[in-house]
């Protein structure tokens, strides 16, 4: 038996003891071969080092999630309509889910807009087209999000989640104070009136456009950036672009009665706000995380 064979056998026997050579063959070889004797020592050291890797317990959150799922899968209630619906809504692999979510969000957002303006003034065909386009956009972004969740494509998830959270926040703000109302309010409010007069109406929409997308995008990127840490400026800007796609129908619907300058002002402001907000939120999240780690290490 040559050295090569002996050494191969020594190495694999560290992993699988059933592969060990017969005792007398090995001893005979080792007695006359220094090289294999020192190899044996090294293999033993590697085996011991591998032995050092400890077992970690399963994190409680993962255990809970698995057991809960196991429970739900076989519980009698699993066959009820409600359980079926819940399963359907919570399954990222469900191809109908993004379309459903697109329809749902578009309807909710259309309702929010209808709270403050009379949508029936718009031509029905244009309204229908806008609704269909919006539903499609939302469906695509929800699809992106579902793929990101299920395949751990963190960059896709980041894009979609940032935009969805941001547009959600934009509409929450819109419920209480739609942008045109805010502009009108500031134009009549004695403190801000002089400033507003200096800005043209387009300029006012620009400034508010920045605010109305900077804040939502900053929060959105902050929320979504948790597990994602690459290309901050590029990805945040891309997320801003996705957000702008979702926001555009809302801008056009709300601006329909106004002049072109208003639309352009708002649109440009929103674009700028989305880019700055996205990068800001991302930066804040990672900056904060790094600082809290440093605090933990040094205190």
């Amino acid at each position: 038996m040559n050295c090569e064979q002996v050494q191969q056998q020594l190495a694999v026997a560290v992993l699988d003891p059933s592969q060990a050579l017969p005792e007398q063959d090995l001893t005979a070889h080792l007695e006359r071969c220094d090289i294999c004797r020192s190899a044996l020592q090294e293999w033993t050291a590697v085996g011991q080092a591998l032995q050092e890797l400890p077992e970690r317990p399963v994190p409680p959150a993962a255990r809970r999630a698995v057991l809960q799922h196991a429970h739900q899968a076989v519980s009698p209630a699993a066959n009820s309509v409600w359980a079926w619906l819940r399963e359907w809504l919570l399954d990222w692999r469900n191809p109908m889910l993004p379309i459903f979510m697109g329809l749902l969000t578009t309807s909710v957002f259309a309702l929010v807009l209808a709270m403050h303006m009379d949508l029936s003034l718009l031509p029905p065909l244009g309204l229908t087209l806008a609704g269909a386009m919006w539903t499609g956009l939302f469906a695509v972004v929800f699809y992106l999000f579902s793929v990101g969740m299920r395949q751990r494509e963190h960059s896709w998830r980041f894009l979609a989640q940032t935009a969805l959270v941001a547009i959600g926040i934009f509409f929450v703000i819109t419920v209480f104070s739609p942008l045109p109302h805010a502009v009108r309010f500031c134009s009549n409010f004695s403190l801000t009136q002089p400033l507003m007069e200096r800005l043209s109406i387009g300029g006012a929409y620009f400034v508010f456009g920045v605010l109305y997308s900077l804040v939502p995008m900053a929060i959105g990127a902050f929320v979504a950036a948790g597990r994602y840490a690459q290309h901050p400026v590029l990805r945040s800007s891309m997320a801003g672009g996705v957000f702008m796609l979702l926001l555009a129908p809302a801008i056009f619907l709300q601006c329909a009665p106004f002049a072109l300058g208003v639309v352009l002002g708002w649109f440009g402001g929103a674009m700028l706000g989305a880019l700055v907000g996205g990068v800001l939120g991302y930066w804040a999240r990672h900056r904060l995380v790094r600082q809290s780690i440093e605090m933990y290490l040094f205190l």
Partner: protein
Amino acid sequence: MPQRSDEQLMRDYARGDVQAFEALFRRHGQKIYNLFLRFSGDPQLAEDLLQECFLRVIEARDRYRSENAFDRWLITIAINLLRDHHRRSRRRNEKTMSEEPVAPDAGNPAGTNPQLDLERRYLQDAVQKALLSLPAEQREVILLSKYYGFSFAEIADMLNITPAAAKQKAYRGMLSLRKKLAYLKEQDT
């Protein structure tokens, strides 16, 4: 009451016995979690994959045939998940494996000698990094034989390769480990 076999537990779970599944998870959850952890060096990823792995078990409960040993079936699912993940992350050309593998800290029961603890953590870190530097298919074979006690014949069966190929991969992997961990031996003596 005699302990039920894994296969029996799986059959019982398919009939609606949730406690049978809990017993299975108690027996195998930690092993699978540590397989993912050692393979990836990334606790968050290991947690995700662990959940995904057992979700597949749950979904396949009616299709499971007890002629197949449960532990091997489970490992096959786990390996497939790892390969899927590996393929995707390579396609994305991203470094998804932790740059800094977390030194597992659960295994120093005595913890009385801080110097010793530090050395042990350093060693664990070195071993984890050395493992991560191996090609995936060598890492698979080494983890399955060293930590799960499968023979090369069993591993070959699970990975759909010949026993000789499994042995060869193990040997290649061990050679790299020896090279990477050689300094440990010098420190010892």
